[in-house]
């Protein structure tokens, strides 16, 4: 137990209610095997995701953040994910400027039927964050 707990990292996922959360649900219902590092926060739309959510998560202990919404042109609110795309791209470019590896943050589009894609995304992203290791290792060592 303790061995597994030590190796688990903290990944926060912001998933839109209409597509990606459904996609994750599809993966779960289909019993697709997924890593357990991810903690999902359901949001009404990827357009609801303020880039500050991601920064706050990364500054306060998360090792990685995943945002997923409906495919472009498929937004439940018509254009929420179009706004999200610009904001998230801006943040993706800003993170390395702050000294945070941009690979710790990923945004993508997954529909409610794409349980397989969800499984693949979570697995690959978790693997990548594990390769990068904990973000706050230094601070945790010296409390």
């Amino acid at each position: 137990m303790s061995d597994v707990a030590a190796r688990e990292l903290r990944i926060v996922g912001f998933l839109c209610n209409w597509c990606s959360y459904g996609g994750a649900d599809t993966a779960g219902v289909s019993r697709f095997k997924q890593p357990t590092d991810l903690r999902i926060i359901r949001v009404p739309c990827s357009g609801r995701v303020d880039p500050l959510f991601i920064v706050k998560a990364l500054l306060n202990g998360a090792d990685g953040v995943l945002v997923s919404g409906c495919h472009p042109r498929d937004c439940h609110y018509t254009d929420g994910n179009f706004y999200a795309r610009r904001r998230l791209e801006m943040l993706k470019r800003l993170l390395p400027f702050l000294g945070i590896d941009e690979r710790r943050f990923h945004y993508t589009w997954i529909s409610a039927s794409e349980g397989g894609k969800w499984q693949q995304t979570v697995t690959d992203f978790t693997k990548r964050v594990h390769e990068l290791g904990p973000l706050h290792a230094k601070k945790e060592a010296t409390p």
Partner: protein
Amino acid sequence: MISQRLREAIAGVFSEVDVALAYQQGFDKLHATPCFMTMPEEINKLIWNPLCVHNLTSYLPSLKKKKVAVVVKGCDSRTIVQFMQEGLINRENVVIIGIPCNGVISVNKVLHETNHEPIEDITFGENGEITVKTLKGEKTLLLSDVCPDKCKTCQYPTPIVYDRLVGDPITSDKSPDSVYADIKEFENKTLEERLQYWEQEFDRCIRCYACRNACPMCICQDSCIAETRDPHWISQRATLSEKFMFHMIHALHLAGRCVECGECERACPMGIPVNKLKRKINLDMKELFGYEPGIDPEDKPPLYTFKVDEVTIKEHKI
């Protein structure tokens, strides 16, 4: 003299306005200070020289219902354009008195050059030479050496928007490529170096919010999420992560809106380079969307809009 012509220009519009914003001498020879003139006899206090560093347009949103005349340099004029884009001022209530500007001083850089000796006197020559007198003697500096970084790469020495122009228009002789050269150079550092840099800088922050209050585009002011308890974005702890978070709030709320007047950085009493983050975002906005804030009043800030097909944004693979 430009000062005299400026006084005349303000006297000419004085009857039309409730208040005129200009500069007067500050508490010592090295500082100018904003002055709010409401009576014609006050016009004589007015000065114009490279000490006039402040962006006076910062006061405009708070004076929205009044008729205001404001003295504006090239860089300051971008703020007005951005205000117009966002509907923060009534353009017809503002009389813009533009001044083509060859650069202002950075008080900190002058003090650095003079070993922080109190300045007894300072005079400005025709060709950008500055003579500074301290108790230790006289020293001649060049404006190009002691100006803020924004002046070194200034692309808009002449105001973009104005009602009266005092002086002849100046065209920039600085390469547009130089504007973000420092940002690109910073990106050559390793990730660890960058993180260490920001941690060291932000650790000095005392959360006095001078950067926020001096920023013309920070319009939330008393409703700033850095101070609200609900939502509770950041705590009152003086820890590095809370200070870091405050600066991220400031930077991200200015994404694609920052006119790079540098007031945040100038206002910081602890010498934190707070404008750098916003300029990095501006560079990205330029590369991604070809957008520059404060240039065209009809434009829309890039994060307030979108294209269905974003040719510049590639899908990310894991």
